[in-house]
Protein backbone atom coordinates (compact mmCIF):
# COMPACT_ATOMS: atom_id res chain seq x y z
CA UNK A 1 0.00 0.00 0.00
CA UNK A 2 1.29 3.43 -0.97
CA UNK A 3 0.08 6.69 0.57
CA UNK A 4 0.48 10.06 -1.14
CA UNK A 5 -0.67 13.44 0.13
CA UNK A 6 -1.67 16.35 -2.08
CA UNK A 7 -3.29 19.65 -1.26
CA UNK A 8 -6.32 21.37 -2.77
CA UNK A 9 -6.92 24.71 -1.06
CA UNK A 10 -7.19 23.95 2.65
CA UNK A 11 -8.02 20.30 1.95
CA UNK A 12 -5.50 17.48 2.23
CA UNK A 13 -6.19 14.59 -0.14
CA UNK A 14 -4.65 11.24 0.81
CA UNK A 15 -4.43 8.97 -2.23
CA UNK A 16 -4.29 5.35 -1.12
CA UNK A 17 -2.83 2.94 -3.66
CA UNK A 18 -2.93 -0.84 -3.31
CA UNK A 19 -4.50 -3.16 -0.75
CA UNK A 20 -5.66 -2.12 2.71
CA UNK A 21 -5.18 -5.32 4.66
CA UNK A 22 -4.14 -6.74 8.01
CA UNK A 23 -0.47 -6.09 7.26
CA UNK A 24 -0.54 -2.41 6.36
CA UNK A 25 -3.78 -0.62 7.31
CA UNK A 26 -2.20 0.78 10.49
CA UNK A 27 -0.03 3.01 8.27
CA UNK A 28 -3.02 5.07 7.10
CA UNK A 29 -4.06 5.50 10.73
CA UNK A 30 -0.55 6.62 11.71
CA UNK A 31 -0.38 9.06 8.80
CA UNK A 32 -3.67 10.73 9.75
CA UNK A 33 -2.61 10.95 13.41
CA UNK A 34 0.64 12.67 12.36
CA UNK A 35 -1.30 15.10 10.15
CA UNK A 36 -3.61 15.88 13.08
CA UNK A 37 -0.54 16.70 15.18
CA UNK A 38 0.43 19.14 12.43
CA UNK A 39 -3.01 20.77 12.77
CA UNK A 40 -4.49 19.53 9.49
CA UNK A 41 -8.26 20.03 9.72
CA UNK A 42 -9.73 18.81 6.41
CA UNK A 43 -9.12 15.29 5.12
CA UNK A 44 -10.20 13.55 1.93
CA UNK A 45 -9.28 9.87 1.74
CA UNK A 46 -9.30 8.78 -1.90
CA UNK A 47 -9.79 5.01 -2.35
CA UNK A 48 -9.92 5.08 -6.16
CA UNK A 49 -6.91 2.79 -6.43
CA UNK A 50 -7.88 0.38 -3.63
CA UNK A 51 -9.31 -2.92 -4.84
CA UNK A 52 -9.08 -4.89 -1.60
CA UNK A 53 -9.97 -4.05 1.97
CA UNK A 54 -10.39 -6.29 5.00
CA UNK A 55 -11.66 -5.78 8.55
CA UNK A 56 -8.33 -4.18 9.58
CA UNK A 57 -8.73 -1.65 6.77
CA UNK A 58 -12.34 -0.97 7.75
CA UNK A 59 -11.12 -0.73 11.37
CA UNK A 60 -8.56 1.90 10.35
CA UNK A 61 -11.27 3.93 8.58
CA UNK A 62 -13.55 3.65 11.65
CA UNK A 63 -10.73 4.82 13.93
CA UNK A 64 -9.90 7.77 11.65
CA UNK A 65 -13.56 8.71 11.21
CA UNK A 66 -14.38 8.61 14.94
CA UNK A 67 -11.21 10.53 15.88
CA UNK A 68 -11.93 13.29 13.35
CA UNK A 69 -15.62 13.46 14.37
CA UNK A 70 -14.64 13.86 18.05
CA UNK A 71 -12.29 16.71 17.16
CA UNK A 72 -15.06 18.34 15.11
CA UNK A 73 -12.85 18.41 12.02
CA UNK A 74 -13.77 17.43 8.45
CA UNK A 75 -13.38 14.10 6.66
CA UNK A 76 -14.71 12.64 3.42
CA UNK A 77 -13.96 9.18 2.03
CA UNK A 78 -14.29 9.04 -1.73
CA UNK A 79 -14.19 6.81 -4.81
CA UNK A 80 -15.07 3.54 -3.07
CA UNK A 81 -15.89 0.81 -5.56
CA UNK A 82 -15.82 -2.93 -6.25
CA UNK A 83 -15.18 -5.24 -3.30
CA UNK A 84 -14.27 -2.28 -1.04
CA UNK A 85 -17.82 -1.01 -1.45
CA UNK A 86 -19.23 -4.49 -0.93
CA UNK A 87 -17.29 -5.02 2.32
CA UNK A 88 -18.45 -1.63 3.67
CA UNK A 89 -22.02 -2.56 2.68
CA UNK A 90 -21.75 -5.95 4.41
CA UNK A 91 -20.56 -4.15 7.55
CA UNK A 92 -23.52 -1.73 7.09
CA UNK A 93 -21.32 1.32 7.49
CA UNK A 94 -22.30 3.15 4.30
CA UNK A 95 -24.41 5.54 6.40
CA UNK A 96 -21.77 5.93 9.11
CA UNK A 97 -18.87 6.98 6.90
CA UNK A 98 -19.01 10.38 5.15
CA UNK A 99 -18.82 9.11 1.56
CA UNK A 100 -18.86 10.86 -1.81
CA UNK A 101 -18.66 9.52 -5.37
CA UNK A 102 -15.79 11.74 -6.52
CA UNK A 103 -13.04 14.11 -5.39
CA UNK A 104 -15.03 17.03 -6.88
CA UNK A 105 -18.05 16.12 -4.78
CA UNK A 106 -15.79 15.72 -1.73
CA UNK A 107 -14.37 19.22 -2.25
CA UNK A 108 -17.91 20.62 -2.56
CA UNK A 109 -18.94 18.88 0.66
CA UNK A 110 -15.94 20.43 2.45
CA UNK A 111 -17.20 23.89 1.56
CA UNK A 112 -20.77 23.17 2.66
Amino acid at each position, binding site marked *: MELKIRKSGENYIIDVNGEMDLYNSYRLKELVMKMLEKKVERFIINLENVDYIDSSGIGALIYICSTIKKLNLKLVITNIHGSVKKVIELTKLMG*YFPITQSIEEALERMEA
Partner: protein
Amino acid sequence: MANENLRNGILEIRVDENSPLFDKTGMLHKEFPSDFRQIRYFTLLVVQSAPPDIKEINLLEQQISEIIKNAVKHGNKCNPEKKVRVWYSFSPEHAHLVVEDEGEGFRDLEKWNEFNRKRQACLEKADFETLADYVSFRTARSDDNDGGNALFAALEYWDGGFVFNQKRNAVAMLKRFPKRRMGLAADES
Protein backbone atom coordinates in the same frame (compact mmCIF):
# COMPACT_ATOMS: atom_id res chain seq x y z
CA MET B 1 -34.16 -21.53 2.41
CA ALA B 2 -34.24 -19.06 5.32
CA ASN B 3 -31.03 -18.01 6.99
CA GLU B 4 -30.71 -20.22 10.08
CA ASN B 5 -28.78 -17.52 11.91
CA LEU B 6 -31.85 -15.28 11.95
CA ARG B 7 -33.45 -14.96 15.42
CA ASN B 8 -36.38 -12.54 15.82
CA GLY B 9 -35.30 -10.75 12.67
CA ILE B 10 -31.68 -10.28 13.82
CA LEU B 11 -28.69 -12.30 12.67
CA GLU B 12 -26.95 -14.17 15.50
CA ILE B 13 -23.91 -16.39 15.71
CA ARG B 14 -25.13 -19.84 16.73
CA VAL B 15 -23.54 -22.77 18.53
CA ASP B 16 -24.72 -26.06 17.07
CA GLU B 17 -22.39 -29.04 17.14
CA ASN B 18 -24.92 -31.07 15.16
CA SER B 19 -25.37 -28.61 12.31
CA PRO B 20 -25.16 -30.34 8.91
CA LEU B 21 -22.60 -27.65 8.04
CA PHE B 22 -20.06 -29.65 10.11
CA ASP B 23 -20.46 -32.66 7.80
CA LYS B 24 -17.07 -32.73 6.06
CA THR B 25 -17.89 -35.58 3.67
CA GLY B 26 -16.31 -35.01 0.28
CA MET B 27 -14.62 -31.75 1.28
CA LEU B 28 -11.01 -30.87 0.48
CA HIS B 29 -8.69 -30.35 3.44
CA LYS B 30 -5.59 -28.31 4.22
CA GLU B 31 -3.81 -27.44 7.43
CA PHE B 32 -1.51 -24.54 8.17
CA PRO B 33 0.81 -23.44 10.98
CA SER B 34 -0.39 -20.32 12.81
CA ASP B 35 1.90 -17.92 10.98
CA PHE B 36 0.33 -14.45 10.93
CA ARG B 37 2.51 -13.32 8.01
CA GLN B 38 1.10 -16.05 5.76
CA ILE B 39 -2.64 -15.68 6.37
CA ARG B 40 -3.40 -14.24 2.93
CA TYR B 41 -1.15 -16.81 1.25
CA PHE B 42 -2.91 -19.69 3.03
CA THR B 43 -6.25 -18.18 2.00
CA LEU B 44 -5.18 -18.06 -1.65
CA LEU B 45 -4.24 -21.75 -1.49
CA VAL B 46 -7.82 -22.50 -0.46
CA VAL B 47 -9.58 -20.05 -2.77
CA GLN B 48 -7.67 -21.13 -5.88
CA SER B 49 -9.96 -24.15 -6.21
CA ALA B 50 -13.11 -21.97 -6.37
CA PRO B 51 -14.75 -21.36 -9.77
CA PRO B 52 -14.06 -17.80 -11.06
CA ASP B 53 -17.78 -16.88 -10.99
CA ILE B 54 -18.04 -17.02 -7.21
CA LYS B 55 -14.79 -15.18 -6.45
CA GLU B 56 -16.68 -11.90 -6.99
CA ILE B 57 -13.81 -9.44 -7.33
CA ASN B 58 -11.97 -11.03 -4.39
CA LEU B 59 -14.85 -10.83 -1.90
CA LEU B 60 -14.76 -14.60 -1.29
CA GLU B 61 -11.01 -14.43 -0.64
CA GLN B 62 -11.48 -11.51 1.75
CA GLN B 63 -14.21 -13.25 3.74
CA ILE B 64 -12.24 -16.51 4.05
CA SER B 65 -9.11 -14.58 5.02
CA GLU B 66 -11.01 -13.05 7.98
CA ILE B 67 -11.97 -16.47 9.31
CA ILE B 68 -8.43 -17.86 8.93
CA LYS B 69 -7.08 -14.71 10.61
CA ASN B 70 -9.42 -15.20 13.57
CA ALA B 71 -8.24 -18.82 13.89
CA VAL B 72 -4.53 -17.91 13.67
CA LYS B 73 -4.64 -14.80 15.85
CA HIS B 74 -7.52 -15.12 18.31
CA GLY B 75 -7.73 -18.93 18.40
CA ASN B 76 -4.11 -20.07 18.29
CA LYS B 77 -2.58 -16.76 19.49
CA CYS B 78 -0.12 -16.99 16.55
CA ASN B 79 1.59 -19.98 18.17
CA PRO B 80 3.32 -21.68 15.19
CA GLU B 81 3.12 -25.04 16.98
CA LYS B 82 -0.66 -24.86 16.71
CA LYS B 83 -2.42 -25.70 13.46
CA VAL B 84 -5.39 -24.24 11.64
CA ARG B 85 -7.39 -26.88 9.77
CA VAL B 86 -9.59 -25.90 6.86
CA TRP B 87 -12.12 -28.10 5.04
CA TYR B 88 -13.62 -26.57 1.91
CA SER B 89 -15.88 -27.24 -1.02
CA PHE B 90 -16.79 -24.89 -3.86
CA SER B 91 -19.13 -25.00 -6.85
CA PRO B 92 -20.67 -22.25 -9.02
CA GLU B 93 -23.57 -22.27 -6.54
CA HIS B 94 -21.90 -22.57 -3.15
CA ALA B 95 -18.88 -22.05 -0.92
CA HIS B 96 -18.77 -24.27 2.19
CA LEU B 97 -15.97 -24.15 4.75
CA VAL B 98 -15.12 -25.48 8.18
CA VAL B 99 -12.22 -23.74 9.93
CA GLU B 100 -10.85 -25.20 13.17
CA ASP B 101 -8.11 -23.98 15.49
CA GLU B 102 -6.48 -25.38 18.65
CA GLY B 103 -7.46 -22.51 20.91
CA GLU B 104 -9.76 -22.33 23.91
CA GLY B 105 -12.78 -21.35 21.80
CA PHE B 106 -14.72 -18.12 21.19
CA ARG B 107 -15.58 -17.29 24.82
CA ASP B 108 -17.16 -13.92 24.02
CA LEU B 109 -19.76 -15.27 21.60
CA GLU B 110 -22.78 -14.27 23.75
CA LYS B 111 -21.25 -10.83 24.39
CA TRP B 112 -20.73 -10.47 20.66
CA ASN B 113 -24.39 -11.32 19.92
CA GLU B 114 -25.55 -8.80 22.54
CA PHE B 115 -23.24 -6.14 21.09
CA ASN B 116 -24.55 -6.90 17.59
CA ARG B 117 -28.19 -6.59 18.74
CA LYS B 118 -27.45 -3.08 20.00
CA ARG B 119 -25.63 -2.27 16.77
CA GLN B 120 -28.59 -3.49 14.69
CA ALA B 121 -30.96 -1.37 16.78
CA CYS B 122 -28.88 1.74 15.96
CA LEU B 123 -28.87 0.83 12.27
CA GLU B 124 -32.65 0.38 12.22
CA LYS B 125 -33.14 3.81 13.76
CA ALA B 126 -30.38 5.26 11.51
CA ASP B 127 -28.92 6.55 14.80
CA PHE B 128 -25.36 7.00 13.57
CA GLU B 129 -24.31 8.92 16.66
CA THR B 130 -24.98 5.99 19.02
CA LEU B 131 -23.80 3.58 16.31
CA ALA B 132 -20.31 5.05 16.82
CA ASP B 133 -20.18 3.03 20.09
CA TYR B 134 -21.07 -0.20 18.26
CA VAL B 135 -18.92 -0.17 15.12
CA SER B 136 -16.07 -2.14 16.61
CA PHE B 137 -16.35 -5.11 19.01
CA ARG B 138 -13.46 -4.97 21.50
CA THR B 139 -12.43 -7.29 24.31
CA ALA B 140 -9.63 -7.02 26.87
CA ARG B 141 -7.50 -9.02 24.43
CA SER B 142 -8.11 -6.81 21.35
CA ASP B 143 -5.17 -4.85 19.98
CA ASP B 144 -4.93 -1.76 17.78
CA ASN B 145 -4.85 -3.80 14.59
CA ASP B 146 -8.11 -5.63 15.35
CA GLY B 147 -10.83 -3.99 13.29
CA GLY B 148 -13.50 -5.58 15.50
CA ASN B 149 -15.90 -5.69 12.55
CA ALA B 150 -15.05 -8.90 10.65
CA LEU B 151 -17.88 -11.00 12.09
CA PHE B 152 -20.57 -8.39 11.29
CA ALA B 153 -19.73 -8.80 7.61
CA ALA B 154 -19.28 -12.59 7.96
CA LEU B 155 -22.83 -13.07 9.26
CA GLU B 156 -24.19 -11.10 6.32
CA TYR B 157 -21.98 -12.79 3.75
CA TRP B 158 -22.36 -16.44 4.83
CA ASP B 159 -26.08 -16.50 4.13
CA GLY B 160 -26.44 -20.30 4.32
CA GLY B 161 -25.33 -20.33 7.98
CA PHE B 162 -22.41 -19.45 10.27
CA VAL B 163 -22.19 -21.87 13.19
CA PHE B 164 -19.70 -22.73 15.95
CA ASN B 165 -19.15 -26.17 17.46
CA GLN B 166 -19.71 -26.76 21.19
CA LYS B 167 -16.08 -26.03 22.09
CA ARG B 168 -16.31 -22.90 19.89
CA ASN B 169 -12.91 -23.52 18.30
CA ALA B 170 -14.41 -24.49 14.94
CA VAL B 171 -16.78 -22.58 12.73
CA ALA B 172 -18.72 -23.89 9.73
CA MET B 173 -20.14 -21.59 7.08
CA LEU B 174 -22.03 -21.68 3.82
CA LYS B 175 -22.53 -19.09 1.11
CA ARG B 176 -25.06 -19.66 -1.66
CA PHE B 177 -24.70 -18.09 -5.10
CA PRO B 178 -27.55 -17.62 -7.58
CA LYS B 179 -27.76 -20.05 -10.49
CA ARG B 180 -26.15 -18.58 -13.59
CA ARG B 181 -27.25 -19.01 -17.19
CA MET B 182 -25.37 -17.57 -20.17
CA GLY B 183 -23.06 -15.72 -17.78
CA LEU B 184 -25.93 -13.91 -16.05
CA ALA B 185 -27.39 -14.69 -12.66
CA ALA B 186 -30.92 -16.06 -13.15
CA ASP B 187 -32.43 -13.25 -11.10
CA GLU B 188 -30.60 -10.62 -13.17
CA SER B 189 -31.97 -11.78 -16.51
